[in-house]
């Protein structure tokens, strides 16, 4: 402390549990649950304002999932069913952090994606693009002690969908993360830089303009592998614990 006034640290009430509070992204930079241009939200996104749920034990804890849910082969989506997937081989890597900048170590990261032609291996995806016998589109990794993750895959293709006339989804990889608390759960999509399909995609454009760049990976020449693969970096930021020093009645110093 460098403050000009001194103050005893606050003692927690002994009868009360001391729980972290997870900060919430302001509405202007958080994806809304509904977006008019994304037609499926019309009948699915709840219409009433959600009720604030204070963070208690159930919300500040969450499933601890890690090494036991992955195998080494899960980190390479290009080698499946006895052969190599078609397409541009890429390395996707980055760190999982919370909004306080702390790494989220030993955390499960689940990913899924379309193949190089833009087709998912799923019964309801039947547009006329080829399936790849050596690509199932599923990957799982666990972050290391510094919150780093990395997997090898092929660059997914764009694909058409029925949202509007001639609608195409920009190439993307789906990500699912738990963090360490129920409040931190995140399911999202990673995009590739400079995709010309961004402008007509309501799922991308549902993200407020100030936050869209956070959904786009960065090409990293340094991490490409000679004669092997391109590389894209994408850091993922989960909600951190609320630290609002000015809400206290002290002199505003930050320890």
């Amino acid at each position, binding site marked *: 402390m460098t403050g000009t006034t001194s103050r005893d640290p606050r003692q927690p009430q002994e009868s*009360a*549990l001391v*729980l972290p509070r*997870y*900060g919430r992204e302001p509405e202007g930079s958080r*994806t*809304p*649950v509904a977006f008019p241009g*994304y037609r*499926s*939200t*019309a*009948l*699915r*996104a*709840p*219409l*009433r304002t*959600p*009720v*604030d*749920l204070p963070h*208690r*034990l*159930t*919300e500040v*804890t*969450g*499933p601890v999932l890690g090494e036991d849910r992955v195998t080494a082969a899960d980190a390479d989506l290009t080698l499946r069913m006895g052969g190599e997937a078609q397409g541009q081989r890429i390395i996707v890597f980055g760190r999982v*952090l919370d909004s*306080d*900048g702390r790494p989220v170590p030993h955390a499960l990261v*689940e990913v*899924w994606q*379309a193949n190089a032609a833009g087709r998912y291996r799923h019964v309801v995806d039947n547009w006329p693009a080829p399936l790849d016998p050596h690509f199932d*589109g*599923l990957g799982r990794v666990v972050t290391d002690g510094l919150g780093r993750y990395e997997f090898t895959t092929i660059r997914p293709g764009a694909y058409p969908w029925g949202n509007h006339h001639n609608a195409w989804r920009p190439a993307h990889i*789906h990500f*699912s993360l738990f963090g*360490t608390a129920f409040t931190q*759960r*995140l*399911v*999202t*999509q990673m995009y590739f830089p400079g995709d010309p399909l961004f402008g007509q995609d309501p*799922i991308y454009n*549902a*993200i407020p303009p100030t*936050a*869209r760049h*956070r*959904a786009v990976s960065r090409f990293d020449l340094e991490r490409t592998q000679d004669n092997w693969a391109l590389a894209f970096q994408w850091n993922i930021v*989960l909600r*951190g614990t609320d*630290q609002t*020093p*000015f809400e206290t009645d002290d*002199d*505003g110093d*930050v320890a």
Partner: protein
Amino acid sequence: MSSPHLSPLVRGAREDNDRVPGTPRRGSGFLDGPVRLGTTPSATVGPYLAIGLTWPDGPHAVAEGTAGAIWLRGRVFDGNGDVVPDAMVETWQADPDGRFAHPDDPRGPVTVPGFRGFARSDTVDGGQYAVRTLKPGPVPDGAGGWQAPHVDVSVFARGLLDRVVTRIYFADEAEANAADPVLAALPDDESRRTLIAQRTDDGYVLDVHLQDCADKGMAETVFFAV
């Protein structure tokens, strides 16, 4: 200090250069607030979530063969009152002693062997989710009181750009439910009813209604901002 070009922060500082509460120290050069990184925006799970999020043991919050295990079931409905067959429901809850399978539970670890407390179920079966678990016990509310037995629920689907969060309470816990701070904060019994699961032969059932459907007499479930 008469320059008209000084920033409001500098003009607002005290003559002795001490800090006015809530403003940075003049010229300190140090950050005066914590660094906050912007969080990654959420996106829909889309229609192909089964590729990435299917686990053979997904619906099981408890180890197989656990005595007293029950099924939590229900269907997910949209604003037309039609079932949503491509959603995913995830549940997170305490064990029968009210403890969580998580290192931050300050009261110690769960007491039931093989209790994960977490389950995920798709709704491919006619819009129905099904989770095998143990009924949770009461959980401290952090202020000296108790929350009624409950399960935190996340619903993901095509057409939802973020998860929606709700809770499952239990109809046979009327007394605990009446004292629960979350239920008490809801405006009326009609809202509370959307969160209370009813007894079945092998557990409990609670449907999730993403929106009202007046034609079919369906009321939107209470969802929470966490």
